[in-house]
């Protein structure tokens, strides 16, 4: 076991960099909330911090977060999983098939199992046969929607309320609220006080009518962080993604850990698809709509870490929810983005990156100018908001990203140099 420990530390240069303390994170969150409140007051876009927005953001973020978590497991073990989208599709079908007959939780389990099948297929191709990871992933993305559609015609075409491309209705999972809190917070939110009401709105969104599936997702993200970073199993798994040959020389069965990781990846992706189908109330052909790829992006933005990917998925879910709920909040988002970019500019300048700082500042000023000279955003651009925000943040944060060192490389036992 001590050998395994040494592997992880020696080959991970990121460990050298001092991590931010929890206190710093809390301060950043507090600052972000203050800015958010200020923007809400200035623009009058109450939707920025309303209960409904936060709830919608959570619902939108969960399938993406699960896809991102799936990507994390695979890539930490050195396997690129671009087949997330396909595995999610399998999950949506599984949830549709079991969900309408035996309830939402059976659907979730069945979707997860189908995801495992997809993961196993990817593992067989990439680990056992050494297929290029991208090729295998693309093959799964082509195979899965076809298979799901074929199966859906077999099982749903004649079911009551179903069709060739959609399942009958699935009951939604239970929703829970923290007792007593919603009313109290709701009355504070209605006061429209600076900061206090915003905080109440966000807290109310996080504690009212939360689907148990969302709770499950949160537990899984925290659980993954624990397993991957605090247990010997996690350490060995990550060592396979950093330096598989070194891990092998220390007695780690790299194939076994890669299989484990990619299968778990399939399970999480399948779960993400299943959650999407259950919260949508049915399986539909083409329902995932690229969420698997967005999850992959959220994981990269999250620097291959659970907390980061949750932030990325949350950011995307939040902007997506704002864009769908109304145009006023998206207009306010311009100002928010402008302020955020200026903050990034100052921070980058102090970090000694004047060029990046200038670029951030310029884009920030541009957004501010756009905000103050317009009354709204054309509807054609509103739908693009989640992507623009995510890409901007991704581009400016990517300066500090570090992928697992051996990710995407084909590993063969006993062939290390």
């Amino acid at each position, binding site marked *: 076991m001590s050998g395994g420990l040494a592997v992880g530390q020696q080959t991970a240069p990121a460990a050298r960099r001092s991590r931010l303390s929890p206190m710093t994170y809390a301060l950043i969150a507090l600052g972000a909330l203050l800015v958010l409140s200020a923007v809400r007051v200035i623009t009058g876009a109450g*939707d920025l911090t*309303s209960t*409904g*927005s936060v*709830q*919608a953001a959570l*619902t*939108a973020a969960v399938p993406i977060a699960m896809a991102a978590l799936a990507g994390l497991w695979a890539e930490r073990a050195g396997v690129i999983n671009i087949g997330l989208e396909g595995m999610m599709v399998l999950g949506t079908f599984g949830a549709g098939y079991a969900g309408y007959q035996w309830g939402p939780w059976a659907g979730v389990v069945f979707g997860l199992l189908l995801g495992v099948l997809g993961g196993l*297929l990817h593992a067989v*191709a990439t680990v056992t*046969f*050494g*297929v*290029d990871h991208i*090729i*295998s992933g*693309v*093959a*799964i993305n*082509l*195979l*899965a*929607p*076809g*298979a799901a*559609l*074929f199966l859906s*015609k077999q099982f*749903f*075409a004649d079911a*009551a*309320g*179903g*069709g*060739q*491309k*959609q399942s*009958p*209705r699935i009951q939604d999972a239970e929703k829970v609220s923290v007792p007593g809190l919603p009313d109290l917070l709701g009355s504070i939110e209605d006061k429209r006080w600076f900061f206090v009401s915003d905080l109440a709105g966000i807290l109310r969104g996080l504690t009212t009518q939360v689907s148990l599936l969302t709770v499950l997702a949160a537990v899984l993200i925290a659980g993954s962080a624990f397993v991957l970073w605090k247990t010997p199993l996690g350490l060995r798994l990550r060592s396979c993604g950093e330096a598989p040959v070194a891990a092998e020389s220390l007695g780690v069965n790299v194939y076994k850990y890669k299989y484990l990781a990619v299968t778990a990846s399939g399970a999480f992706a399948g779960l993400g698809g299943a959650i*999407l189908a259950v*919260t*949508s*109330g*049915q399986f*539909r*052909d*083409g*329902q995932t*709509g*690229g969420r698997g790829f967005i999850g992959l992006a959220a994981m990269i933005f999250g620097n291959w870490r659970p907390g980061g990917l949750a932030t990325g998925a949350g950011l995307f879910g939040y902007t*997506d*929810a704002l864009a*769908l*709920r*109304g145009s006023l909040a998206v207009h306010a988002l311009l100002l928010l983005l402008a302020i955020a970019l200026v903050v990034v500019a100052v921070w980058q300048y102090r970090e000694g990156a004047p060029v990046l700082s200038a670029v951030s500042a310029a884009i920030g000023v541009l957004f501010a100018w756009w905000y103050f000279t317009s009354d709204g955003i054309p*509807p*054609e651009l509103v*739908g*693009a908001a989640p992507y623009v925000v995510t890409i901007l943040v991704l581009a400016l944060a990517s300066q500090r990203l570090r992928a697992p060192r051996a990710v995407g490389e084909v590993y*063969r036992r006993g062939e290390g140099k």
Partner: protein
Amino acid sequence: MRRMRGVRLAAGLFALGIGLASCASDTQPGGDGGTSGAPAPSTVKVGLAYDIGGRGDQSFNDSAARGLDKAKSEFGVEVTELEAAQGETDAQKEDRLRQLAESGHNVIIAVGFAYEKALSAAAADYPEAKFAIIDSAAPEAANVANLTFAEHEGSFLVGVVAGLKSKTGNVGFIGGVNTPLIQKFEVGFEQGVKAVKPDATVQVKYLTQPPDFTGFNDPAKGTTAANGMLDAGADVIYPAAGGSGAGAFEAAKAKGAMGIGVDSDQYNLPALANVKDVIITSMVKNVDVAVYDFIKAVKDGQFKSGLQVYDLASGGVSFATSGGKIDDIVPQVEEYKEKIVSGEIQVKDTK
């Protein structure tokens, strides 16, 4: 060598994936047996190509399927149905139409404006076959009939219903994808609402922008958009968004609001049975009538090319009263219907 094997496996997976995808999306046409050449004029062989969603979508395509089924049982014509796949190209659509024409179908119906370009190209090469396209006026040829609907007129009527039934004076319209066709629903609806409540607010949201057509197929987005409108004070939601509409009705049900169905009489659809309480009316678009009429016309030798508009006057669009939730205001709505039919009220169809 090992590496080669891997590549071969990947290639195999690819082939399997593509094979499965294509066999899942296309039912093989019935008359494969080399019956090319001009068919006898007395036999009518109908080929119908669905839009995304296909038979069983509980909406637009199902309506076309009903018309086809009726023609089949009444005239005993031979029919072939082909389905579209998500995210396919115009070339794939064109192939589908050519496949039908090549296998001896002389009546070919393309369901949905997405076939616009494909049909123009295919129809030119098969002058003997009679083509029809639903919802598009664009392809013009001597053997093409354009079956379009006055959705704006039907939407005006459900807009009147929304205006009369709304207590907050605030209603919402959710479009699936921001296309000119769906904008017809929006402008008609808004005009209808304003006709009875000039100071009412109409919130408008399109789920996606073309070429992203997932907005017709994403109930989760429908729920989010509807919740946003309901939180902003709306109490009636009209989703013209295909499968995403189900999500909007769920949201309306959870918040005790009202919803308006589209294309079919959605109150009576089994897939929406759990939310039928909130569906007060539906803007019914009788695609089945258009499909049936077209087949009948060709069979009787009465084929007419060019634009045929199914409007309120001809019964091509209407509003549904199933569930009895608008019984108290039906006379008022009928009044507006008369005014539109007589031409007293002109309903706009573009912004």
